[in-house]
């Protein structure tokens, strides 16, 4: 399936775009997506943390993605 991925902050710089169409196997979990992304973009491995939000909520590595999800890459936040 193809996912819509949004990237912010340094994650956007690393993947080179705010929005990404990204192909993964059906039933891919968040943890697997992150591994796949980290292989393709090794600089992601150097971050303090890399979280994922789906539809504006943080999700854990076990969350099973579906094509309609808006997947957001959340590198370490630094507001305030």
């Amino acid at each position, binding site marked *: 399936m193809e996912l819509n991925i*949004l990237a*912010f*902050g*340094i994650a956007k*710089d690393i993947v080179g775009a705010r929005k990404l169409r990204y192909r993964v196997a059906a039933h891919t979990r968040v943890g697997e997506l992150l591994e796949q992304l980290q292989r393709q973009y090794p600089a992601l491995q*150097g*971050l*303090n943390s890399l979280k994922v*939000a789906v539809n*504006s*909520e*943080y999700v854990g590595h076990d969350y099973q993605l579906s094509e309609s999800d808006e997947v*957001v890459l*959340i*590198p*370490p*936040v*630094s*507001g*305030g």
Partner: protein
Amino acid sequence: MSVSSSVWPLIYLTEMPLLPQQVIELVSDPACGGIDVFIGSVREHTQGRRVLRLEFEAYEQMAVKEMQKIADEACSRWPVQQIAIHHRTGTLQVGEIAVIIGVAAAHRAAAFEACRFAIDELKQRVPIWKKEVFEDGEVWVAAHP
């Protein structure tokens, strides 16, 4: 509650300059004896390097949602009357205000503790990112170990 009569929302993400007086008026209430306000602004130096400007970007819909959750959590943990959280995005110059949190409560302990909680949580989990721009480069704050 003073929300309905106000122009500004309690939870607010904006590119416009933030005004402490707005936040104070938003949370002020004759039932409250104490207001604690935290104002975070752009420092001219960070780890010895001179900052030219900051650039904030936010995943807006989620940032507002998380800010609202933090306000709700603070209200459930402390006897608080009203909380406002205003955060700015875009380019900020040194000295400009990035965030204002105002908490009104009948007693000051709750106001202090809830305000501290809110800024600590905001810095932990609200999807906003800050890039420091120096004369000789730029860095996404907290990105790397």
